[in-house]
């Protein structure tokens, strides 16, 4: 039995943000300079989004822009923060209200990190891979993976893989940022978004072996994908009825209830505001936030803005609450409908996470001294329960041409089937959502293996069977995941002996970073 253990240095790409202070501060500034919630929840996300918008306006170093931005946030005549103000009213009034607690709850956690449906690393044929089974989805913009190991090849290697979506990359690099990278409702753009690609580089190839140069000599494979079915996209047409029911149900109630609160807060009698104290509070908040938007660093400015808004919401607003009894009655009705809305919307998103994915993938595997191999693969992915994800691959590979060193070779090079179960283990030791994976693969190879030096190895055609256990550990909040895998194979491409090996690497999904750092 051959035992191969491969260890390499993993680049230290830690993009963690600055932690929230322990004194109840809600927000932090992440590595991209964006203010985000230290502990994500509907309330904290909304609150920190407000702080971030003021910070962004301040960063423009344009007093008029800052003035306009703050005026938009704190305008007695309207705006987008009434829901936040009402939530603060409810929290001030009754911290034990179940509805208020619902709004405060952190049920919207780090969902992106817990996703297990994206293929960021290399495919199963690469010499450096930790994946036995390909996943159905890829990053929407760009993924980057460095993996060391091999599954059915005798020689382990290091493979660097870039994975992405053409629409996302082109528009993201167009200086508009991730959020402008899509035109959701444009049918053509939606079609193009279903395509993705990847390029893998084998660092053992080329003139600088062992070093990633990214030149053509190191290209070991390239692939194209098309999503035939993606029911994990909540905007898929099959969920339209659910979205309509949400809008016509709790969405309608919550909208109308907030509209009634807004009408009450802006009501005038004989030219004067009925709730003049509230108008004064908004006017005062406007001035105090402008005054607070200063500091030597982004973190300092963000802290000052947060402190000012927090003081206004949870101290000063409390002082005018006595004049808002009629509003509080409306606010209680609002909180119930809003809490129901949040629950109903989350149910749609939960349903979508269980949706099926069917993807077709073409991979051109570039051999060194043998004909390239075209792999045609169908990938199906589904859900089993709330924590498990099932993936199946079926593929066949053909030689792009008959090798000169073996004229009798079969053009159909191999057929392969594999399956995988991913289990979300939850947040282990505060690392983030750890994923456990078990997978198995069977392959029938119809030709003898041709080595990288172009020599045919006799009696190497036959059946391969591989079992694998993998644990993937995310680096919280960074888009980085570190997979460790352990596999057992009945043989390798060259040696008909049982093979046990470990492999690991890191993958980096830029989607989560672009989502935070759009200009």
């Amino acid at each position, binding site marked *: 039995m051959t035992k191969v253990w491969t260890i390499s240095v993993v680049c230290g790409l830690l993009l963690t943000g600055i932690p929230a202070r322990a004194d109840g501060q809600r927000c932090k500034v992440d590595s991209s300079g964006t203010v985000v919630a230290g502990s994500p929840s509907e309330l904290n996300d909304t609150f920190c989004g407000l702080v971030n918008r003021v910070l962004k306006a301040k960063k423009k170093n344009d007093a008029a822009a800052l003035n306009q931005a703050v005026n*938009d946030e704190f305008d007695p005549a309207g705006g987008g923060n009434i829901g936040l103000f009402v939530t603060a009213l409810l929290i001030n009034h009754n911290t034990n209200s179940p509805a208020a607690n619902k709004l405060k709850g952190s049920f919207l956690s780090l969902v992106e990190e817990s996703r297990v449906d994206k293929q960021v690393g290399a495919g199963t044929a690469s010499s450096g891979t930790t994946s036995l089974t390909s996943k159905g989805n890829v990053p929407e913009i760009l993924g980057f993976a460095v993996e060391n190991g091999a599954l059915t090849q005798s020689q382990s290697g290091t493979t660097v893989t870039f994975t992405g979506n053409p629409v996302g990359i082109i528009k993201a690099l167009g200086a508009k940022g991730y959020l402008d990278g899509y035109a959701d409702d444009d049918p053509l753009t939606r079609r193009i978004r279903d395509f993705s690609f990847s390029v893998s580089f084998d660092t053992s190839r080329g003139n600088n072996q062992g070093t990633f140069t990214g030149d053509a000599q190191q290209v070991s494979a390239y692939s194209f994908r098309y999503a035939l079915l993606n029911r994990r996209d909540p905007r898929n047409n099959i969920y339209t009825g659910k979205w309509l029911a949400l*809008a016509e149900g709790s969405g309608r109630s919550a909208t109308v209830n907030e509209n009634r609160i807004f009408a009450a807060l802006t009501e005038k009698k004989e030219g004067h505001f009925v709730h003049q104290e509230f108008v004064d509070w908004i006017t005062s908040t406007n001035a105090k936030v402008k005054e607070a938007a200063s500091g030597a660093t982004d973190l300092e400015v963000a802290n000052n803005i947060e402190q000012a808004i927090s003081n206004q919401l949870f101290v000063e607003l409390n002082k005018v609450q006595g004049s808002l009894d009629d509003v509080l009655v409306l606010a209680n009705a609002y909180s119930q409908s809003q809490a129901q809305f949040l629950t109903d919307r989350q149910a749609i998103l939960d349903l979508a996470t269980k949706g099926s994915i069917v993807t077709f993938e073409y991979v051109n595997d570039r051999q060194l001294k043998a004909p390239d191999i075209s792999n045609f693969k169908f990938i199906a992915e589904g859900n089993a329960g709330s924590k498990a994800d099932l993936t199946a691959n079926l593929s066949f590979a053909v030689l792009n041409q008959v090798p000169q060193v073996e004229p009798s070779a079969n053009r159909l090079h191999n057929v392969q089937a594999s399956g995988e179960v991913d289990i979300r283990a939850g947040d282990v030791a505060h690392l983030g959502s750890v994923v456990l994976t078990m997978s198995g693969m069977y392959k029938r190879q119809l030709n003898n293996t041709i080595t990288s030096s172009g020599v045919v190895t006799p009696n190497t055609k036959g059946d391969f069977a591989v079992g694998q256990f993998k644990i993937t550990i995310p680096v919280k909040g960074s888009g980085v995941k570190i997979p460790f895998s352990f596999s057992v194979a009945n043989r390798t491409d060259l040696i008909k002996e049982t093979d046990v090996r470990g492999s690991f690497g890191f993958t980096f999904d830029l989607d989560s970073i672009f989502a935070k750092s759009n200009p």
Partner: protein
Amino acid sequence: MKKINGSTFNLQFAHQETLKVEIINRIKVGPFANYAFNGSDPVLPVATPYTRQLEETGANADPNPSSLSVRVTFAEQGGGSFSIRVTGDQGGDVSTFDYEQAGAQSEEQVNYSINIG
């Protein structure tokens, strides 16, 4: 339509002017939007503009000011954005409100004071 003191949300319309609300630049938002005009509550496909003729006087006179709310639901747990553009059919100013989803925020409701006459 005229923005009062440059406010994005405090808007002045003429008698019988038709206001139009469009949700544009939609990224990762749900397929439907909620509207509430003085408590009435249409639901429209998010790509369909909301229109209403405003009446200062007469049997169908609107409250003055009237309150208009627009709710956009985010369809994913991050990365959503949209803009709301409010115009009047008699020309004048254009009110534009740009918004980016904060974290995994579920929805954003924007409220306008509609002054008539």
